[in-house]
């Protein structure tokens, strides 16, 4: 009888053994080594054991009786020291055994990220029953907390399990969204939401710097300085194939032990199976292909012809209540088309990827009932041309019954307590009550509830609540939507971002039923602005959603070069600054232009040179003039009482103070101010977004001027007596504009929409002004930094080409 030795009693070798012994009870004399002190159990069910939904006994695949019945000699708890290929011997810790055929099934080990402190007691990889029991023990302590590093499949299952055992759990994930290998952002957003509802803290784009503790784990420190207390740290950042035995035996090893399609290694008598193998440059971590390998290996050993083929894989998450499915390719390759369906109310997201009339990938969240049907279409390569229109609705709709996506979905999904009208604090429930009580027109609702009766920007939403409640009985005034990605207007979107507390772009896309996977050049910059203006602390500014000028912090010119404008506070400069500017201009061969905003423009700077010229200007004490932003540009001044015979106040000083207060802030459109020292108005304050005219008795603040495509004079906002009051009113006004303006509406357009009277009423309340100023200060705590200095130190490489192949020989 041939001697078969197997190293490793995991799921792949276990399935191989089943096939071999089922086919022929006495084909081989079998010896099975396992480093773990037990036989084969269903490793993928460790998560339910961790959560307490199963016990270990329930997940044992092969018990002692099973091995005994098949005459398998088990050497459990014994490590293999090495394999002597010449003499065909396997050396175990307790002695050697000879083989005719050898199977290496050593599996994989968790990848432990080598941060300082990774070797502290309490840092656990998640692989076997010992790890699981260690976690269960840790969870049993009072008020214990865990940090899970790696938000993939395994990490999230573990996090959910630990949470069910009562631990405080924080998941750290280095990518921008969870399970980034299997899910896109929208599905990742929904998943994060569901996990957070269970009390799990999720931190994305989080990089672990250090694990801290005295003799055992105490806390995890992130790159950004955040510190999270932890009794245990679970590493689920990936697996590494265990190849040591194969490597030391001299087998061919790439990223894992290389096998052919019969699972044969570079030695014809040695085979490998499972997570320790590499086949056609692929590694394996999911169970389905391992079972395929096991079948092929068994057949090969039994002399039956068979070969292993790669096949489509699908993923499901074993966390009760998180329905998630991912299959096929949903990213790579060309010539693909997306079909997206979102239902914010049912928290459903589905995305299908079609290529050449065939479904090649699918991502689903919230409703995975049809996942097998879709997976079948992917595997079979079914031609879906005929059912393309209704494909996303699943098999039930393939009889031709038409269906459409509901344009009122976003409003329908709003909870009754969601605030629709911010001015008057009216929530959806108040409006539906009024409608039920007989208010069937916009005017009726306004009269009854005051919703949309003040600034009016929520009119669209109030109408949609009417339409949703009354059905065909109400016709919505067709306001222009943001873009083709949505039916909502800018005002609707802003209101809903506040009411639903949407704090990420994927949240907006999902909850507001966006029709495209990730927006377009019209909506992305707008959404990015709304999110950063409403949630300065929570939202992360997205450079990829900004126009080139704001991404590169310089103005692109028609030939692809840039213009660079350093800030000159209130239009004042010094000889030293001018020398530095002149030197930089010479060094980078710039054209020099004096701007209308009282500063100096350096034109014709190449992109590669931007970080260099910024560095030069920074070292002379100058910062970005933001001459390229939808944000504060300049505060133009005259020389005021410092020099002018007619000056009534220190207009220069006031202008500088205002500019120092406001610079760095993002606004719906560009924002220009001016302060004139007397009514002669040399700084042309009355055609600015905000103009201040100094008079003997104080300061006249006026707003809503324009001197571009439209020409308009400002209108009086308020007259005040002191500089402090100017600061207070101007800051409050800017924040009101930031919070309510439509993206790309200059101040005058916004004021025309909401009405100057409304603005005055709002700002007349001292408490409102204080609140607005507080929120402005909060935003400035994040955004008032010099982007030039930031990019010079953190992003300079983005200004260089990725590669230079001009020296490569092109044949």
């Amino acid at each position: 009888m041939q001697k078969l030795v197997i190293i490793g009693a995991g799921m792949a070798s276990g399935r191989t053994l089943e096939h071999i012994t089922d086919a022929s009870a006495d084909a081989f004399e079998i010896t099975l080594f396992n480093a773990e002190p037990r036989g084969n159990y269903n490793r993928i069910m460790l998560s339910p054991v961790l959560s307490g939904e199963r016990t270990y006994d329930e997940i044992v695949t092969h018990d002692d009786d099973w091995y005994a019945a098949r005459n398998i000699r088990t050497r459990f708890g014994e490590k293999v020291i090495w394999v002597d290929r010449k003499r065909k011997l396997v050396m175990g810790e307790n002695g050697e055994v000879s083989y005719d055929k050898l199977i290496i099934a050593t599996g994989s080990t968790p990848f432990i990220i080598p941060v300082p402190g990774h070797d502290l007691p309490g840092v656990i990889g998640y692989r076997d029953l010992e790890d699981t029991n260690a976690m269960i023990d840790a969870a049993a302590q009072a008020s214990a907390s865990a940090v899970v590093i790696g938000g993939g499949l395994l990490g999230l299952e573990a996090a959910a399990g630990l949470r069910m055992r009562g631990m405080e759990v924080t998941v750290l994930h280095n990518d921008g969204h969870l399970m980034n290998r299997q899910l896109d952002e929208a599905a990742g957003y929904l998943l994060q939401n569901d996990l957070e509802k269970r009390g799990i803290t999720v931190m994305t784009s989080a990089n672990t710097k250090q694990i801290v503790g005295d003799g055992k784990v105490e806390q995890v420190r992130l790159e950004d300085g955040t510190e999270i207390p932890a009794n245990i740290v679970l590493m689920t950042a990936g697996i590494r194939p265990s190849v040591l035995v194969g490597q030391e035996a001299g087998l061919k090893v790439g990223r894992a032990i290389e096998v052919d399609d019969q699972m044969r290694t570079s030695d014809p008598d040695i085979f490998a199976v499972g997570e320790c193998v590499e086949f056609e440059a692929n590694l394996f971590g999911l169970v389905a292909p391992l079972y395929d390998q096991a079948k092929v290996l068994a057949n090969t050993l039994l002399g039956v012809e068979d070969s292993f083929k790669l096949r489509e894989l699908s993923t499901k998450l074993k966390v009760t209540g998180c329905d998630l499915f991912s299959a096929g390719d949903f990213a790579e390759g060309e010539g693909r088309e997306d079909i997206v369906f979102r239902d914010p109310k049912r928290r459903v997201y589905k995305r299908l990827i079609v290529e050449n009339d065939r479904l090649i990938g699918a991502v689903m969240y919230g409703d995975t009932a049809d996942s097998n049907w879709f997976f079948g279409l992917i595997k079979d390569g079914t031609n879906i041309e005929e059912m393309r229109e209704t494909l996303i609705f699943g098999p039930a709709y393939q009889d031709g019954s038409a269906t459409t996506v509901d344009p009122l979905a976003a409003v329908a999904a709003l909870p009754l307590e969601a605030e629709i009208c911010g001015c008057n604090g009216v929530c959806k429930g108040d409006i539906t009550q009024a409608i039920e009580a007989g208010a069937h027109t916009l005017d009726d609702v306004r009269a009854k509830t005051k919703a949309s009766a003040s600034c009016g920007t929520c009119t669209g939403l109030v109408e949609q609540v009417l339409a949703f409640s009354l059905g065909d009985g109400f016709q919505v005034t067709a306001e222009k939507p943001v873009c083709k990605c949505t039916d909502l207007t800018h005002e609707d979107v802003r209101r809903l971002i506040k009411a639903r507390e949407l704090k990420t772009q994927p949240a907006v896309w999902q909850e507001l039923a966006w029709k495209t996977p990730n927006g377009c050049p019209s909506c992305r910059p707008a959404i990015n602005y709304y999110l950063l203006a409403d949630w300065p602390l929570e939202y992360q500014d997205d450079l990829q959603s900004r126009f080139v000028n704001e991404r590169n912090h310089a103005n692109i010119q028609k030939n692809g070069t840039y213009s660079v404008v350093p800030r000159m506070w209130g239009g004042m400069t010094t000889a030293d600054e001018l020398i530095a500017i002149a030197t930089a201009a010479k060094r980078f061969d710039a054209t020099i232009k004096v701007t209308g905003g009282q500063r100096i423009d350096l034109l014709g700077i190449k992109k590669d040179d931007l970080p260099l010229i910024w560095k030069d200007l920074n070292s002379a004490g100058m910062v970005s003039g933001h001459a390229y932003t939808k944000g504060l540009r300049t505060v133009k001044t005259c020389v005021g009482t410092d020099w002018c015979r007619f000056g009534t106040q220190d207009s220069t000083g006031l202008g500088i103070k205002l500019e120092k207060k406001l610079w760095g802030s993002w606004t719906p459109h560009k924002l220009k101010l001016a302060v004139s020292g007397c009514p002669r108005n040399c700084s042309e304050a009355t055609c600015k977004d905000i103009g201040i005219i100094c008079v003997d008795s104080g300061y006249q603040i006026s707003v809503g001027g324009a001197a571009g495509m439209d020409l308009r004079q400002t209108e009086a906002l308020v007259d005040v007596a002191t500089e402090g009051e100017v600061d207070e009113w101007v800051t409050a006004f800017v924040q009101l504009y930031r919070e309510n303006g439509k993206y790309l509406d200059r101040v005058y357009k916004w004021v025309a929409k909401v009405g100057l009277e409304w603005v005055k009423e709002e700002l007349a309340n001292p408490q409102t002004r204080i609140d607005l100023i507080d929120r402005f200060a909060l935003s400035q705590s994040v955004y008032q930094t010099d982007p030039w200095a930031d990019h010079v130190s953190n992003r300079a490489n983005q200004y260089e080409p990725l590669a230079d192949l001009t020296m490569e020989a092109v044949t």
Partner: protein
Amino acid sequence: MNWTDIGELAAVPIRGSRIVKTQAGCIAIFRTSETEVFATSNTCAHKGGPLNEGIVHDKKITCPLHNWVFSLETGEAQGADEGRIATYPVKVENDRLLLDIDALATATA
């Protein structure tokens, strides 16, 4: 085919772009998602704008100068505009970006 390593995938931001200088001019490498990349000429067919500075959305790029939109898959201008930019084979292997530089030679010939 002559696949040449041009850098790591992570160097290109998601929904962003970087350029590669070649004898055939600047090539823009676009990353539209976690693992999906495209390579095209960096020069807009309209007035030569640098496409790598545009906004990447879906599998399209909008030129920063005058908002022409091109498919990154076919290179065709979208909507009412007519024109085309060259596209080149690029792929990701082990988190590295590989560009077929033979295709550049064909394009210039």
